[in-house]
Each structure stands twice: as structure tokens, then as C-alpha cells.
């Protein structure tokens, strides 16, 4: 019996496809997410919009909070660790968290390295802005990838940018010789073995979700149209006027992303979306995606 193998980790990620993973900060919100049809919840101390507003150092959530959320729902519970924070990751693994997000939304703990994810039984998801970043995270053992976008902004433009760049770079691999791959790998900072795998499959070898700034059913549909296997919604649900209604609408939109009639129906009368932020108005040093 093999536990925590790469196949068991990536296989689990395949089960999320077509689904919505929602940030929650309380057991009550977790129940709302489950009832709305979320495929998993992300247990957090604060949603990204509040982390951005609060400033300071953002850390792993209180284990007490994570346990409360685990007790409240039957769907998988994910949680975030700071980039490179091996000890936080071990704590989450010990708590039985189902998936760890090594996330730029929290304040990075290691200025040099990401976590060596091969050393863990629990699977990890990591953010990326381009193919180089995706390939590096995969070579470190990430079992799932997501775009970084710009979390807590309610502005989808960065998630779109990262998905477009990723798609474009994957397309460029087709037809490259080994020598060309090696050179391109150097340019991207990507391990050539991972690029070979991506070239062979014409896609990332792991599930790829979209995250960062998704606030409406149409945003979720847009990311699916661009090839995302599913979406993470952070602040977009519980910072909106009617979280229950919006959560259900985003779930349906994620499944029926190519059915404009249905998208029109579910987008109607949702109340105010979360307040949005223009990316140009955020000082460069406060952008989470560069972490």
C-alpha cells in the first residue's frame, strides 16, 4: 500500500477539475461554500483583500481555526503556508489538511528556496506567472499549479495575463528540438526534463487552476475559456454583498463556461461584487505576484 506517492497526489488534484475552491475564514463560511457546491475550501485567517489592507506579516492560519473548518465540512480542506516555510507545512500535514497552498498571498519565509515538496505526503499547489515558474514548482514536487493573478484585487487582469503567457509558452514548445528546449529552458529558468514532459503532453503534466482576482461568474467562465481546469476564488465571494448567491452562481458558471445563456441567467441580480482595485494603483512593492 503506497501513501503520499506522486500518483496519489496528482490523482487527487484531478478530482477538483471543473470545480471551484473557495477561501473561507470561519466554519459558517465553509458550510456556505460546501452548500454552494465548492469542491474544496481554503481555510484562512483573513481573505487576501483583508491581508492586503492589514499589511504586516501574514502567516499560516491558527490550527484551531483549521480544525473548526475541518469539522464543519465533508469536502477537502486546504490551507496556505508561507513560501519556503517547512515547519508551517509540517504542522498543516500533521493536522490532516488535504492540500497545502505554498502561497504568495502570505509573507514569504525563505528568500532563497521554495519547499522541497517531494519530502511530504500531503500534496502541494503553487502559483505561477509563466512556464518557467510552473516548471520549477513542478520539479520541486508541486502536484497542482495555479496562476498567481493578483490576489485580493477583484481584478482578473493579472490571472488572464499569467494564463495567456503560460499558454503561449507551452505552444512554443511544440516542434522544438532537444537543443532548442535546453536553450529555452535556460531562458525561462525551467528544468529541461519538465519541459520535455510538457512538450510531450502539450499541456502541464498536473492540473492547472486559475486564481487571483476572480470576482464574478463571468470571470470564472473567462478563465475556463482560456484553458484553466477550474478556479480558486479568494475574496470574491465573502467580500461581496450576497456571498451565498454569488458562490452558487460562480460554481454553475465554472461548469457551464461555454453556455452564454446560462451564464446570463446566473449572473443576474447577484448584488454588489467585491470592490475592485486597479493594478496600476498598487505600489510595485505591494504586488503579491512578485513573491
Amino acid at each position: 500500500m503506497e501513501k503520499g506517492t506522486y500518483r496519489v497526489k496528482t490523482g487527487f488534484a484531478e478530482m477538483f477539475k471543473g470545480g471551484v475552491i473557495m477561501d473561507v475564514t470561519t466554519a459558517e463560511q465553509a458550510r456556505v461554500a460546501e452548500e454552494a457546491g465548492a469542491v474544496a475550501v481554503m481555510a484562512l485567517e483573513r481573505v487576501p483583500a483583508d491581508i492586503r489592507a492589514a499589511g504586516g506579516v501574514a502567516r499560516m492560519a491558527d490550527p484551531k481555526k483549521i480544525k473548526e473548518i475541518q469539522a464543519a465540512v465533508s469536502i477537502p480542506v486546504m490551507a496556505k503556508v508561507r513560501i519556503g516555510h517547512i515547519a508551517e507545512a509540517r504542522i498543516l500535514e500533521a493536522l490532516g489538511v488535504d492540500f497545502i497552498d505554498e502561497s504568495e498571498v502570505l509573507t514569504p519565509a525563505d528568500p532563497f528556496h521554495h519547499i522541497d515538496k517531494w519530502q511530504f505526503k500531503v500534496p502541494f499547489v503553487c502559483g505561477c506567472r509563466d512556464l518557467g515558474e510552473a516548471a520549477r514548482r513542478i520539479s520541486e514536487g508541486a502536484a497542482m499549479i495555479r496562476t498567481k493573478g493578483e490576489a485580493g484585487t477583484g481584478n482578473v487582469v493579472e490571472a488572464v495575463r499569467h494564463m495567456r503567457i503560460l499558454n503561449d509558452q507551452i505552444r512554443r514548445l511544440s516542434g522544438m528540438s532537444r537543443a532548442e528546449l535546453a536553450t529555452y529552458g535556460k531562458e525561462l529558468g525551467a528544468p529541461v526534463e519538465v519541459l520535455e514532459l510538457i512538450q510531450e503532453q502539450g499541456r502541464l503534466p498536473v492540473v492547472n487552476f486559475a486564481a487571483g482576482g476572480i470576482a464574478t461568474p463571468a470571470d470564472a467562465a473567462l478563465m475556463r475559456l482560456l484553458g484553466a481546469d477550474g478556479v480558486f476564488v479568494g475574496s470574491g465571494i465573502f467580500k461581496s454583498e450576497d456571498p451565498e448567491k454569488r458562490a452558487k452562481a460562480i460554481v454553475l458558471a465554472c461548469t457551464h463556461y461555454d453556455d452564454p445563456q446560462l451564464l446570463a441567467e446566473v449572473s443576474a441580480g447577484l448584488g454588489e461584487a467585491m470592490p475592485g482595485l486597479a493594478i496600476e494603483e498598487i505600489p510595485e512593492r505591494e504586488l503579491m505576484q512578485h513573491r
Partner: protein
Amino acid sequence: MTIGVLAVQGDVREHLRVLDRLGATGRPVLRPEHLHGLAGIVLPGGESTAMWRIMARDGLAEPLGQALREGLPAFGTCAGMVLLAREITNWPERFFGVIDIAVERNATGRQVDSFATVVSADGLGEVPAVFIRAPLVRRVGSGVEVLARLGDQPVMVRQGSLLASSFHPELTGDVRVHEYFLALCR
């Protein structure tokens, strides 16, 4: 032969790939009209609550339930097994309820306890099996045949042309369980 794969959420692509390898035509099922002319349907792995909530709201649950009650052959893996079970011991609802078994959701525990192993299936021999937060069968009705066990726990069952497994044969590269299902669809 056209076999549907319920495509509201889950590992749809993996099932379609196996069906393709076996020479069947796979069809993602998202809307009621996709049910027409199917010889059978696969209910994939994923989250059973999510799949059910989506189907209940977009209008697919009713016609699919009707088709299952009228005898459409079906194969549920993991969440798909939960969707087909008559009773769920640790959840207040039941979903399609067409196979006379009681299952416990997430009975193998959290993801750190998920595992890959080999199970011995009747007529198929040793089959590689991936169990992910898997349901286990706690009660088996009289018309239900147990095809494979893990220890003393039933993990693959058949009731007429309805098949269900706790595990994911679609993640292993071994096509025999699907082949067995296609024979039930003929």
C-alpha cells in the same frame, strides 16, 4: 457504442481517455440532451456534493436519475459510487440511490491516508487501484454482487448493469474494469 461521462465536475478526461483506448465513443454529459442514445454512463471521481448541487440546479439530476431508474447502465468511481448508493451512512442526503448499498463517504480518511494498491477482482484478477478519500461499502443489499474487496471491505460491486468502485481504475492505465463495464452495456 457511445458511453457518456458525467462532466459537471471531476476526472472526466481520464475516463474519456480509457473509453477511447477501448474503442468506445466517449461523450461528456453536461445537459439533458447529451443523454440521448447512450449505451451507458460513467459517473467519475470528484466531489459528490459538488456534482449533486450542480446537477440539482442546472436541471440534469432529474433526467439522469430517470434514465438510471429506467435501466441505463452506469459505472460510478469514488464520488460516482456515492452518487449511485441507496444510503450514505454519514451524510443526511441520498443522491440517485439506485444501487442497494450503504456507503460511508471519505471512509479511508483525509488525503494523507489516500493510497495506491492492488485489489483482486472477480474474473479480472489483480487490478491496480487508487483510493482517494474513498468511500467504503458498509452494507450490501441482496441483489448486489461484491466483485472486489480490500481486506474484508467490499470496494467494487455490481447490481445488474450498475457497477461501482470505491477506487479509481481510470488513474492506473489498466483498462480491464472499464472493459468489464462495456460488456455490461452491450
